[in-house]
């Protein structure tokens, strides 16, 4: 079955009981038992909820994993994955990782003795020299946020196998519609489901998909013990959002690609970051491991002043944090997604004060172009 069909017919899209063509919202905390000793499959809403289970099944099915887990936010998902490790363990992390991941690693998990090393993985040979006998995992984002650098999933996984490391990827930008890292051997796939999976900017959620049974058992224990679960209503909305993932991604990435090509020749713009542009260094690898460029692009203005005026003048994309919704969202990584990274570090990564990130929505491309055009002209005055 092709992925667009799999999205709609996951096997858990119909209520077994009534035939209802959508899974009921089990807004419930506990389940009445028939026997005091032998409890039923469902006993308490933290551990089991049919609405949450349905969406967990769908995401695992689409990613090609053994099991899925839904959490109350992307950070709850990421943090729950880090709970697989213990003090003294080391994790090697993609250099320009999402600011929230950086923050949780460098504050909370660092206090517990989990060490993160941030390295540039666009050249995978970099990774090996940082592996020690304490290294337990490699954490990857590709394309990276916000510079959309590409990391070779197959190559990373080969290194991980050699040293018996767990491979983890934050697949938020691509979604399983465009990129399925488990096919390249990855062990754990994480999403901020708030973004493209939910797709309507109306919920906060995270998901984790695990490739094999052993880690699944551990993850289930963490989810149930730690309890940062996704609520029934949000599970329903996420499931509902995933049903249009294919059509949304296709339309959004088509517009994003067009905008990226159009923007790079615009006066006032210094550089455009988008994985499918010919000048993008990672284009070849990206096309090898993904089915599209995605709907996020970043571009850098000549200077901060122009970038600032552009953001003040743009009207159609809403200015704000987050991405992946049906509405275009313009973000300023320096003060938003990457504010947690020290300025020095940030500049070194290329996340300058002139850089903006655009998550392209479902608006008409001509309207977006016109709006951006006017905002750039005004900024350059």
């Amino acid at each position, binding site marked *: 079955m092709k992925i667009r069909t799999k999205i709609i017919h996951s096997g858990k899209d119909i209520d077994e009981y*009534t035939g209802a*063509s*959508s899974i*009921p*919202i089990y807004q419930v905390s506990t*389940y009445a038992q028939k026997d005091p000793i032998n409890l039923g499959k*469902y006993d308490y809403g933290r551990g089991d909820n049919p609405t949450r289970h349905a969406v967990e099944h769908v995401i695992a099915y689409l990613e090609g994993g053994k099991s899925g887990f839904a959490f109350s936010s992307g950070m709850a998902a990421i943090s729950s994955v880090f709970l697989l490790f213990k003090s003294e363990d080391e994790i090697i992390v993609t250099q320009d990782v999402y600011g929230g991941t950086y923050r949780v690693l460098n504050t909370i998990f660092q206090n517990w003795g989990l060490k993160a090393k941030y390295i540039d993985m666009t050249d995978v040979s970099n990774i090996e020299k940082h592996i020690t006998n304490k290294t337990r995992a490699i954490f990857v984002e590709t394309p990276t946020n916000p510079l959309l650098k590409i990391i070779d999933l197959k190559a990373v996984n080969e290194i991980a196998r050699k040293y018996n490391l767990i491979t983890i990827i934050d697949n938020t930008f691509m979604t399983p519609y465009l990129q399925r890292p488990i096919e390249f051997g990855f062990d754990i796939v994480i999403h901020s489901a708030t973004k493209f999976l939910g797709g309507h900017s109306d919920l906060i959620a995270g998901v984790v998909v695990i490739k094999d049974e052993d880690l699944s058992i551990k993850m289930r224990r963490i989810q149930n013990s730690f309890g940062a679960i996704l609520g029934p209503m949000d599970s329903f909305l996420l499931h509902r959002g995933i049903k249009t993932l294919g059509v949304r991604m296709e339309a959004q990435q088509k517009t994003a690609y067009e905008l990226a090509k159009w923007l790079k020749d615009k006066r006032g713009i210094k550089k455009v970051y988008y994985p499918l542009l010919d000048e993008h260094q990672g284009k070849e690898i990206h096309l090898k491991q993904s089915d599209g460029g995605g709907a996020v692009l970043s571009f850098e203005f000549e200077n901060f002043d122009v970038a600032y005026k552009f953001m003040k003048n743009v009207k159609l994309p809403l200015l704000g944090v987050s991405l992946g919704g049906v509405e275009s969202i313009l973000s300023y990584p320096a003060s938003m997604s990457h504010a947690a990274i020290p300025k020095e570090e940030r500049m070194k990564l290329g996340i300058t004060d002139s850089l903006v990130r655009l998550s392209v929505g479902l608006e008409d491309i001509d309207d977006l172009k016109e709006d951006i055009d006017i905002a750039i002209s005004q900024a350059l005055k």
Partner: protein
Amino acid sequence: MQKETLLAQAGSRWDEKTGSVSMPIYQVATFRHPALGESTGFDYSRSGNPTRNVLEDVMARLEGGRRALAFSSGMAAIDCLMRIFKPGDHIIVTEDLYGGTFRLFEQYKNFGIEFNYVDTTNIDEIVAVKKDNTVALFIETPSNPILKVADIELLARFCKENNLLFIVDNTFLTFFYQKPLQMGADVVVYSASKYLSGHNDVIGGIIVTKDDELGEKLYFFQNSVGGIMSPFDSWLVLRGLKTLHVRMERQTDNAERIAKFLENHKNVLKVYYPGLQTSPWYNVLKKQSTGAGAMISFEVDNPDKVSRILSNVKVFLFAESLGGVESLITFPSVQTHSAMPEELRNKLGINDRLLRLSIGIENSNDLIEDLDNVLK
């Protein structure tokens, strides 16, 4: 089983598959058929939805009826009920009834249905307007906003003798305090937006019938016209029902205190609350209801004070509607009853000095203090 028990466990035992103690929200349009000519019992959500059906079953049981139907608003419920009548039919109605019902009935005149609005606390007025083509009596008791109480048993006997369909809008007291079907009424209607859901977060309506035949007839209209209650709203009403008893008791207790306070306030001319011993309807209410409810209307001594009161209340919310956990204050002559002709309003006492209170579950002293401050 007592009503409190039924309320607390409304929808708690439906889901055999998981044992879920909360009714699942079937946010769904259609249902897969097991095979050609077979059905799970559910085909299409307009015709039947598990969440709505559970609410309907619970309501039928609590009201002591055979069939209940849930609608997208109280008006949609009454509208469905009106579809059983035909041109040339004549209906006698309580004169001081909710303005929206009045407005709806006025529309039905276009379809040849006649209405007479009378004081239904006085059977002589009903007898006086009854004609050969009279087919139904529609009452609100207590009425809105004057809170007059009609004698349900007396009227039921009259309806039976004259072969009239007897309809009672039970929104103000609910089955918790008053069960018209057991006193001989044929149909009960509700705005479920009020006490049943109780949190000012749902718009809904419910009909309960005494017998299956009328229930089936109304179901045909519910399904054909389609003014159904949505799954999520059905779930919220079910959720609201679970606390109906504790809310009603607390609200009524608060209302009794406030009515007494207002009765003794020097700037208040009149208090309408059937639970006051001084009320002309106290005895009939005691006979047929186990509580007086939480609605109070009162007249201030000077109409100029009204706008000041409405803008200065701090605990009461100046808003339409009633029956929620929050206390509301309403100015009926320009809000709930604006659709009613001025002449009729004046006859009924819905004048520019009249304010209506829906008492919530706040602390009664805070509510009294708030009123005391604005009445000065």
